């Protein structure tokens, strides 16, 4: 072996060992895109209004609101990031119910303090069979509950018709099932300066509010009008709380007390702060893939990839015989390096990315084909096996380089100007090119040197 060959062999061995180390065990090492593991990808556009123009700060706070909401929803590893001036990307992996996720994300945080005109009582919980001794008692309880429910529904429709006839009035409900007829807005979220979860002097968790100057004035007159009656705190149309006004509150600071747990108080404070910045958002784009389809995509992609790979391997063996073995080994190394690159660059594998890999399999052997055809030509021209190998490689190398650099240019452009799935495709394509050029030029060469030294080339490429 020549010195150069030994150097090549060492390089190949080092790269293959490093690739093996980074690829195995493969389980969990590859980031799967949302289209493969299922989940929702949502792009939001923040839209400023006249009263609330869009500023850098408002978008930052919007991000905080979204993070808070997503946390509440309990999504693991969500990705919430700002894109450009006024866009927000929300990636929610593994969401089973994308519609529900969208509700949560797309809603505008709108906080209002409204007059409570009328309110129903809370809907009692439905009767449970195990709480009753006999079926009759249970049936009676159920019908009692149904009656309450019907009464409440009647009241609700009556309140709704009243609300529609009265300007500024709306109907809201709370989590306990109370229905409220709400009067005009006293103070909006934009006048709230801060909301904090604190404790009152009895040690009970409360939420303290602080208004700005405008808000303080408005809140002062609102509380003056409503001593002894309720004011509803409405967030996104839901009544969060409807405390009874104990006294007129001036100075712009107020407290909401109730039977909060510290956790609930904290959440309410977050939601109020969130609502204190009503930047409306619009859903620009929403792509959701159910987990079943994601798993299906992986399986069909894997199946197609394996079949495609097998076809290529078979073709190379049938057409190039022993040289084909070298090409097939080089192809395996290409795929190994490709995965190693994907893993070490923490690339996200998407469905188009899988397509990129499959395409790479096809194009990867191109380098080998170019080299083999050249070697055969040289050999037919009467050179010795070793000389054919050497000049074949030299001549093919220039072609391989030129042919692949152009594809690399296309991949680079795709990467910079594409978004989402296209980027995944471009990245796998680019990695594939790098890996396949390495394999064709170095791995195949080392393998062929070994074959030549065992004198197995002449029997393959017949001279004319």
């Amino acid at each position, binding site marked *: 072996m020549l010195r150069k060959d030994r150097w090549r062999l060492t390089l190949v061995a080092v790269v293959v060992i490093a690739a093996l180390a980074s690829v195995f065990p493969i389980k969990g090492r590859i980031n799967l895109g949302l289209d493969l593991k299922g989940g929702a990808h949502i792009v939001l556009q923040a839209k400023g209004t006249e009263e609330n123009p869009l500023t850098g700060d408002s978008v930052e706070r919007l991000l905080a609101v979204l993070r808070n909401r997503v946390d509440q929803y309990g999504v693991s590893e969500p990705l919430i990031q700002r894109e450009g001036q006024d866009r927000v990307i929300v990636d929610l992996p593994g969401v089973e119910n994308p519609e529900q996720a969208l509700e949560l994300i797309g809603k505008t945080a709108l906080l209002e303090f409204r007059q409570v005109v009328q309110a129903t009582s809370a809907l009692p919980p439905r009767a449970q069979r195990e709480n009753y001794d006999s079926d009759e008692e249970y049936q009676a309880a159920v019908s009692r509950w149904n009656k309450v429910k019907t009464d409440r529904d009647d009241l609700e429709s009556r309140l709704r018709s009243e609300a529609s006839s009265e300007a500024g009035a709306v109907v809201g409900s709370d989590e306990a099932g109370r229905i409220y007829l709400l009067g005009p807005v006293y103070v909006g979220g934009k006048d709230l300066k801060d909301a904090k979860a604190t404790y009152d002097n009895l040690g009970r968790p409360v939420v303290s509010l602080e208004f700005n100057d405008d808000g303080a004035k408005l809140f002062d007159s609102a509380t003056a009008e409503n001593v002894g009656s309720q004011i509803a705190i409405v967030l996104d149309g839901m009544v969060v709380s409807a405390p009874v006004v104990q006294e007129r509150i001036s100075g712009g600071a107020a407290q909401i007390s109730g039977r909060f747990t510290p956790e609930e108080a904290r959440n309410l404070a977050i939601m109020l702060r969130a609502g204190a910045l009503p930047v409306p958002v619009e*859903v620009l784009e929403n792509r959701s893939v159910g987990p079943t*389809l994601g798993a299906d995509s992986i399986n069909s992609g894997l199946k197609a990839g394996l079949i495609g790979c097998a076809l290529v391997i078979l073709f190379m063996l049938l057409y190039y015989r022993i040289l084909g073995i070298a090409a097939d080994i080089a192809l395996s190394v290409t795929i190994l390096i490709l995965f190693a690159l994907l893993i070490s660059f923490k690339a996200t594998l998407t469905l188009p990315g899988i*397509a990129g890999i*499959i395409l790479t399999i096809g194009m990867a052997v191109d380098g080998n084909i170019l080299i083999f055809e050249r070697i055969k030509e040289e050999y037919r021209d009467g050179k010795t096996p070793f000389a054919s190998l050497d000049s074949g490689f030299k001549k093919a190398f220039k072609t391989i380089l*030129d042919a692949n*650099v152009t594809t690399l240019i296309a991949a680079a452009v*795709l990467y910079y100007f594409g978004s989402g799935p296209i980027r995944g495709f471009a990245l796998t394509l680019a990695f594939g090119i790098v890996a396949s050029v390495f394999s064709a030029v170095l791995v195949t060469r080392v393998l062929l040197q070994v074959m030549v030294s065992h004198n197995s080339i002449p029997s393959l490429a017949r001279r004319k």
Partner: protein
Amino acid sequence: MNKTAEYRFNFMAFRKKAMFLSVVLILVSLGSLFSRGLNLGIDFTGGNLVQLEFGSPVEVGEVRDVLAGVGQGKAVIQAYSDKGVIIRMKADEEDARRDVLEALKAKYDSVQVLRFEKVGPVVGDQLRKEAFIALGLALVGILIYITVRFQFRFAVVSVLALLHDSIITLGIFSIMGREISVTFIAAILTIVGYSLNDTIVVLDRVRENWKHLRGWGIDGLFNVSVNQTLSRTINTSLTTFLPVLAFYIWGGPVLANFSFALMIGIIVGTYSSIYVASSILDEWFTKSPVKQ
């Protein structure tokens, strides 16, 4: 070296016929592109897409009736298996999708939403712009690279060859009415890369054989170069085609259009690498020879 050029197939003898065929194909493609246009998917137009799987086999007609009931009779319904359909609506409101899903759930209780996509018109506009910028930049980059490595004439014919391939691929999609989505841009750019790859291998041979120009003549030079690279061209096309075909058959409905575009691109690209670039160059050098 050899005084006369030796080759098996006299490709250049048919170059005028081939160029005529290419011009016809391009005109037909452009004609279809201008008259019928492209069936742009919701990625570009904005709209809703829903992929559904039913518990038991369903008829597309029945699904259409249900959709017509909620005012979405114009939606495109594509069945990719006997239980699965993809519905595309041009309406991009959330309500449209919700109505459709509710109506379908009311009729079939075992319907399952596998995927939905909603794209606003703003995003579509932006994508279209991005796609054009990407294509334009890729072309410029490639043009510069080939001019530096070869000659300007080679760069021009390579770009003509890849335009040929992309226009015909687009034309076939236009004629067949197949849908164009974001991944289609990726497919077109891959075809661009592939077509170039193929063309460059031939041109590379021409560059190498250039020293025989005096002995072989222009036709001989191109014939020898194409013949010498022929088995490589065919073998590479096959090894690229096989996995893409596997992906088209087994890869699932989401990327079926993508693999289809690649298959067309590979077929057209193989033809064009033999004919388009070398024919034009042959013609060009014959009509206005360069001083050596």
